[in-house]
Every structure is written in C-alpha cells, then in structure tokens.
C-alpha cells in the first residue's frame, strides 16, 4: 500500500488498516470501521432494550414512599442509553479502534514519557487483594497494602535522594499544589510570610497555575542563551519575599542546567525553598538525584517515569518527596512502620501523628490514601528493574534522544528543524520549525498532522513557549533503534515532499478516522453533550 520511496518499513500504522504506513498522496485508505459516522451510545439507544438485570430484592418490599418522601425523589429517570450488552461491547470496541495507542505505535511526546506499560502490572493490580480492598479496611486487615505503600515510599526516596515521601497527591499538578502549600506552611511556621514564587519561562503551565491556586505570586525568571536559568536575572529577583523556586532539571528544553548548585545556593541564600517538578525524572534516575542538587521538595509523575498507563489522560499519581525540614508539614495520613524484636513489621496509617512527618500537616489533599492502584504498578516496576535497571532505563532514554538527534542531522533534517538550544540533550530535545515555516511554507502543526499519515504520533508541539514553532521530542528507552530510524526517515520524507508541494502537509492528515477538525468552531459554539430531545 505504501507509495513512498522512503517508506517506513518497521512501523505499523497504529490506528489504520494501512499497515505499511507512509501514505504519499491524499487517500482515504483506512479501515471502514474507522470511518464509521461517529454515532454515540445515546443515538444507538432503543426504548425497551437493557443490559442490566437486577437480582431479586429478597427482602419484604415496602412502598418507596415509606422509605423516602416523594418530595425528595426523582420524578423522571435520567435518559441513559437503552442498549444490550453486545451493543455496548461493539460500540466501545469500534470507537476504541479510532484511537492511536502506545501499544501499537511510537509516541515521542516531549515532557510526557510515553514508555511501554508492562502487562504484569495490570495482572498484579487486578488481584482481588489489591483491587477489591476497601480504603476504610482496618489497618490490621490491610498490612499488605500498607507494606507496599511503605515500600514505594522507600523506593521513591532512593530515587530522589530525599528522606520522606508522601504518596497522596492524585496527579503531577496535585503534587505541585502540595509542594507549594508545603513551602508556604514551612515559611509560616517560622513566622515568615513570603509571597513570591520564581518560575523559569520554560516552566510547565501547571507551575504558574498552581502558584495562583496556592495564593502566591508568579515571578518569571529568564532563560539564558544556553537554555538554563539566567543567573543574573535570578539574582536580581531572589529576595526575602521568595517562598520557593519551581524548576525541572533537565528542563523542558531537555537541557540539564549545569548551574543548578549555584541556583540552589542563591535561592537557599535568601531563605527560599527549591521545588523540583518531576516531569523529566526519566532522564536522571540512578544518574543523579534532586536531593543532591539541593532540592527540598520533589514531585513524581508515576504515570511518566514508572510505567503507569496514561489511560487517555488519567489516572496518574503525583507523590512528593521532601527534606527533613519540610517533612512535618506533609499531608496526612502518613504510614508508620514499627519493627518488633523478632524482626516482624507492623504498618499503620496516622491521621494526626504527634511527631515526625505530618506532625504539623497541611491537612488532606483528597479522600483516602491516594491512587493505590497506580502505586501497585509503579512499585512492581521498580521491583522489576532494581537500582541498576532504573539507571539503565534513564541511560538508554538519553542515548535514544541523542541518537535521534544525530540521525536527524545525518538526514539533513536539522537544516529545516534546528535544535533550539545546545548541541546535546538529556532524554528529550526541542527543535524549531521556524526555518521550515520560512523556507518550505509548512508549520509545525502541518508537520505533526502529516506524521499521522506515516503512522507516528506527533511530538509535543508549540511547547515550550519560548521556542518558535517548537517541537519537543522524547523517544524513551523502550523504543528500538529501528523505530527511531523510521521516525527520522518520516520527518525527512515530509520535508522532501513539502519542497515539491507544501499543500500535502498543509492539508494532512488523510488516512485518519477524521481529518483536520474545526477546533475554533468547537470553542466558539460549544456542543459538549448529546442533545437528547431528538433521540429519546
């Protein structure tokens, strides 16, 4: 089916019927299932159909009016779909086939670490002893779960180089919020009201959003020509009002800031706290540790670094690791381990510890203990790899990124898509589509959409904001060299094609379940639910 000279031989089109990939010309060469008109489950509803059959009540029934007064009751049922079980299965299986997924295709998304999700983890997380455990089960009857959580805390402590870990936050952004609130509580405990939070202009958008939610003020710090924090600007802005600085290292440009120790010393020098955004942890596991760099608080994105599947956008989990001085303020409950003389251990959950971590807690950030199902998967991953395996993963991630860079150079791609900063990178790198736009007339978005026709998920585009027509590429350690070669070849092919005819990319994609969608129209006149009047 492929008509390209430089076809992508090893990469299947993940979402399509065209297993060769590389559609050169506009063509609707996709599986008919994917071209289904998008009918919702509500539109497939037929009065009288059902999937649910209730078990008999088995108790003497009384009039519902005797149980709940009519005035408090619902008068008309929710217009949920009326469908049978086979219809539900077929509906969702068919629409699932209109999704690109990591198990069938390469996902080089910068800052998002789309690594392979071992299926062992689904198996162990599904064991009833984990999956059907009630969160209010008494600790005596949840010792396995508490041991696992304590074990994960120790694992994350080792990776971060910080002594205490709190697993509670639900996602990375939730972990960020925890971190900022912790820094605030720490300063307040010392009688200080500090209002400013330093964030580099390369920071993830969640950083400033979090700062605002935590009632503090964002102060931007400039980036220097090498892609690191501008030290002069930092010095000028670091004063006694600074509560913390939020950094990721390597940063969103894929660059490890070599001045990190100086940055730490400047911020600590004015009494501020260093916060590490863990989005890029996959670059450094076993290589270096945030705690050694001087960070006081770290959040982890378990779904990025430790193989939790992304689930189409969730669930994630965002534990935090903290230094001794921050530990008293961590959210509760905290897990306590007590060892008996015979070496046996007992684990408990404390909502109000009187000493140690959590003794001056900021409180709770959510219900219950956090996303335990995610903990099971991540704990298993770290067990599988061990210390040297984690290091190997990070090293291979860095090798893959630099190899892909070299490959792009070899294929002449970097002439149109130059590296934005530096010469080497850690686990990801940012190229700029500026020259491509100028010379070939296609934008980064066009390139991204054309990649879809080649069977690749595009990298993160238009982030970080300070790079013109940015494309942030993270190839991760679980991808083989052939996949990287294929991806580089696809980029080269798209550029070559654009020299002849830029409209091909400008009008891409062609082979996907739908083609370029009107996003502006969707935002202008939002239709965010099925209008049911017509169908029910």
């Amino acid at each position, binding site marked *: 089916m492929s008509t390209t000279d430089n076809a992508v031989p090893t990469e299947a089109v993940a979402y399509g019927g065209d297993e060769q990939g590389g559609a050169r010309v506009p063509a609707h060469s996709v599986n008919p299932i994917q071209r289904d008109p998008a009918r919702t489950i509500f539109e497939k509803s037929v009065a009288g159909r059902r999937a649910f059959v209730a078990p008999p009540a088995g108790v003497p029934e009384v009039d519902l009016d005797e149980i709940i007064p009519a005035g408090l009751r619902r008068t008309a049922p929710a217009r949920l779909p009326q469908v049978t079980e086979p219809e539900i299965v077929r509906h969702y299986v068919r629409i699932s086939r209109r999704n690109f997924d990591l198990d069938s295709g390469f996902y080089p998304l910068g800052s998002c670490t789309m690594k392979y999700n071992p299926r062992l983890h689904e198996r162990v997380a599904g064991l009833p002893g984990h999956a059907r455990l009630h969160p209010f089960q008494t600790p005596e009857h949840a010792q396995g779960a508490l041991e696992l959580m304590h074990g994960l805390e120790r694992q994350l402590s080792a990776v971060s180089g910080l002594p205490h870990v709190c697993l509670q936050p639900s996602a990375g952004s939730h972990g960020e919020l925890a971190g900022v609130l912790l820094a605030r509580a720490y300063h307040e405990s010392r009688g200080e009201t500090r209002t400013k939070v330093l964030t580099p202009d390369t920071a993830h958008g969640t950083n400033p*959003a979090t700062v605002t939610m935590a009632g503090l003020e964002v102060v931007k710090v400039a980036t220097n020509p090498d892609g690191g924090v501008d030290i002069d600007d930092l010095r000028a802005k670091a004063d006694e009002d600074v509560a913390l600085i939020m950094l990721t290292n390597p940063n969103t440009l894929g660059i490890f800031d070599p001045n990190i120790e100086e940055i730490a010393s400047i911020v600590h020098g004015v009494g501020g706290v260093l916060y590490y955004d863990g989005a890029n942890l996959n670059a450094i596991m076993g290589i270096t540790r945030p705690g050694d*760099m001087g960070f006081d608080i770290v959040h982890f994105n378990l779904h990025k670094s430790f193989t939790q599947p992304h689930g189409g956008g969730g669930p994630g989990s965002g534990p935090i690791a903290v230094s001794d001085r921050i530990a008293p303020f961590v959210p509760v409950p905290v897990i306590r381990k007590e060892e008996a003389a015979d070496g046996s251990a007992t684990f408990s959950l404390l909502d109000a510890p009187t000493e140690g971590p959590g003794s001056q807690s900021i409180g709770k950030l959510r219900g219950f203990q956090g996303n335990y199902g995610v903990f099971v998967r991540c704990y298993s991953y770290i067990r599988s790899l061990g210390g040297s395996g984690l290091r190997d993963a990070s090293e291979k991630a860095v090798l893959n990124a630099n190899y892909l860079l070299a490959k792009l150079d070899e294929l002449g791609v970097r002439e149109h898509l130059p590296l934005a900063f530096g010469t080497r990178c850690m686990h990801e790198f940012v190229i700029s589509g500026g020259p491509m736009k100028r010379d070939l007339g296609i934008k980064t978005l066009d390139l991204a959409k054309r990649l879809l026709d080649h069977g690749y998920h595009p990298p993160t585009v238009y982030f970080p904001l300070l790079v013109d027509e940015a494309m942030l590429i993270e190839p991760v350690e679980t991808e083989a060299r052939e996949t990287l070669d294929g991806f580089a070849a696809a980029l080269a092919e798209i550029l070559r094609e654009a020299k002849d005819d830029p409209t091909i990319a400008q009008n891409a994609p062609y082979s996907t379940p739908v083609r370029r969608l009107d996003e502006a129209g969707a935002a202008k006149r939002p239709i965010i639910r*099925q209008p049911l009047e017509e169908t029910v």
Partner: protein
Amino acid sequence: MTRYTPATDADQEAMLAAVGVGSIRDLLAEQIPEALLLQEPLDLPDGQSEQEVYTHLRDLAARNTSAEDEVTFLGAGMYDHYVPAIIDMLMGRSEFLTPYTPYQPEVSQGGLQVMFEYQTAISELTALPVSNASVYEGPSAVAAAAYLAKLVNGRRRIVVSAGAHPHTIQTLRTLAVGYGSEVVVVPLKDGVTDAEAWAAAFDDDTSSAVVQQPNFLGAVEDVQALADAARAGGPKAVVIGAYDPITLGVLAPPGEVGVDVAVGEGQSLGNRLDFGGPSFGFFAAREAFLRRMPGRIAGETTDVDGRRGFVLTLQTREQHIRREKATSNICTSQALNALAGVVYLSWLGREGLPELANLLAQRTHYARTTLAAVEGVELLHEQPVVREFAVRLPGVDVPQVVAYCQDHGVNPGLALTRTHEGQFDDGLLVAITEQRTKDEIDTLARLLGDAIAAQRTGARQEVSA
C-alpha cells in the same frame, strides 16, 4: 535487567558512534557536573524476574482482607458494587489503556467520543447542562467547586454542612488556606444539617454553600430547602452539592433542587475499590459556569470533509495556555475511570439505575429495621436513607465489635470513632450494595447481637472478678 529496553550491546555501540561519544557515561558527563553524578547505584534491591515480582505482589495481596475475602458492609464514600465483566474487558483494551491525552484529535476520536458520552451521561444524571470530563475524585472535586465559586464571586467564606464526608471538609480546609478562604462548618441536628444554624451561617461574604447528599451518616437532606436558605442569607453564594451518583436513581437530581455545581465520587459507577483510588470525581454545573470549570471538556465539531468529530475544547481556561490566569491547575481527567463510569451507566441504562437504587433502598430499609431490632442497637438518626445508615451501640466498644464480626467473616461497617472521635464513639456506619443479600444482612444482625452480648458478659466477668 533490560527486558523492556531493546538496545543490544551492538545497537548501543552503533548509536554511540552515530552520536560521536565513547560511552553513555561520557554523554552524561558532558552535561552534568561531575560532583552530581552518582558514583554508587541507587539504594534499591536488585531487579527481579516477572515471576518473582508476581509472586511477591500476590503475597502482599494475600495479607489484605478484601471484599473478596469477607462480606463487607463498609462504605463511607466508596462502595462494593458489582462491576460488570465488560468493564474490565473494555478498560483493558490497549486503545483505551495506553494512549496519551487526546491532543491530536484526528487519531483520538475514540477517547474523545467517550468523554463526550460521559459528559452527556453526567449531565443526565445530575440534570445540569454542562459537565467536564472528570476530575481526580470526590473530596478534591468539592474543593475544586469551591475554588470555582471563589473565582465567580470573589467572596471569602465557604459554608459546609457537617454532613459532608470528613475527608471533604479536611480537603476544603487545606485548599482554602491556599487561596485565602475560610471554612465554616454547620453542625448536624437529628442526623441532618441543622436548618437554623445553616440559615444563620450565610452573609454577604459567603462564597459557597456545600451540602452532601445523602450525607455522611446516610441521611437524605432536603437540598432544596438548604439551597433556598443559602441564597436567602448569602445572595452571591454558589450552592455546591456533593452527591452519591447511584442514589440519583431515586433522589431528586441536583439541577432540580437549586444546586449550581454538582460534584461527587464516581467510584461506585463501575470502578474498583482499589484501597481508595484511582477513581474519578464528576463535576457538572449550570451553563453560566462553563468557561470557568476546571479540567478537560470534549466538544463536538466537524472536520474539513464535514464529518462529525470531537476535540478537547474551551482550552483557553486551562493552565497550558493561561498559566497563572488559568481557572485551575487541574490539567487531566480520569479518562480511564470515566470510561468505566459511562460504560457502567450504559449497562444500567435508563430503567436499570432507578431499579438498582430502589433495590438498595429496599434492602437498606430492611437492614436498618432488622439491626434496630437487635438488643443493644439503636438508630443514630431516623431520617430517610437510601443505601447507608448509622446506628449506635451504647456502652459498647465498636472497634471490638468490628473485630469480632471480622473474625466471623463479616465486616460490619465503619466504626465512627475512626472519623468522628469524641462525637460518635459508639456509632457504626453500615452500607448496603446489591451484593449484600438478605442472608448476609441477617448474619450481620446475629453477629452484632453476639458481639454486644459477648462484650457485656466480658464486662460483667471483669467486674465480678
């Protein structure tokens, strides 16, 4: 261990040559200051084979007593509902399990359509016109709703009923400190929000009113009356209702009783217990709040060929564009858990949800009547209940009763001293799902009677000794 990393030694050599460095260590040393490069491996045990990890995780699971191992009447926010087999099958499909956020809509139509259907189902359930694609979970959804209220009206006080889940109140307090709000808790009277104290709690500086339905003690609140009182006392107040979604099969939906923002814990809709997560929080609101809601929203649109399609929409509210001016820092949804939610609601269907809720109400009524007839058991309140109710065991050590019952294979529910120490120390909160049969309820009644009698006998023996 390298079972997930494909680069062989030969690959590595070729790749290093292409990069132009001698070793990975050199590549790293070029970029990271020498002093920061770890010399020793991380302080972690060696890696293990898949089989060893499985065995270890199975052993840990065996040290937990799950709802598979005992008959459980535990609820208090998460419930042991039957999860239909199709949910595991659909959630396990790699096309739903392994994709990223649908930022490239042309190849994410499956996930986006699920979000759109989910939003429709939640709107139907709550009778509110707009829903996002889900937030983290229940209590933090309430906190997110209170933050929305603060953005809308700029007021400072959050009035919350003591009938809200204690986790909700604690979470509200934590986050309110951040954005400078104050949390005022209105006490309960006879098991429900004290109407007089509630009405008196509102003023011109009230930002939001938070009520839980049914409340933590299982009692059905008169939400309309509470919403009216909130508006009368605090003209700008946004009324937030935290709902148990299953009970919406029989209870008046929030959109019809004066609630502006309905949120809640979605676990009971087809999700596992998972020791507390992951699940999802639902978030629905009146139209006016659409552009300020947190989290993701899917919208319908068309492609260049006129085909119907779906995209993430209203992204200008979000942190990745608005940064410090964003309406929230929440930048995800619980997509996979929300999928379970919409599949479950489709499975129940229009007729099934009221049938299930009615079944719960009938069995709960039976259970409450049966337990109340046990000597030593009293009702903690007499309000209407749907699926959960609270009793007191005066003069009895409730955690010991729980332990006694667990020794006999039944978890009788939550000893309220664990959440309300000093207030309901003799209280027990009992939850019913469709998994709890009449026989199991009868067994619970017998065991409670036995446990109470055993404690009293024990106490008498101690006294006589």
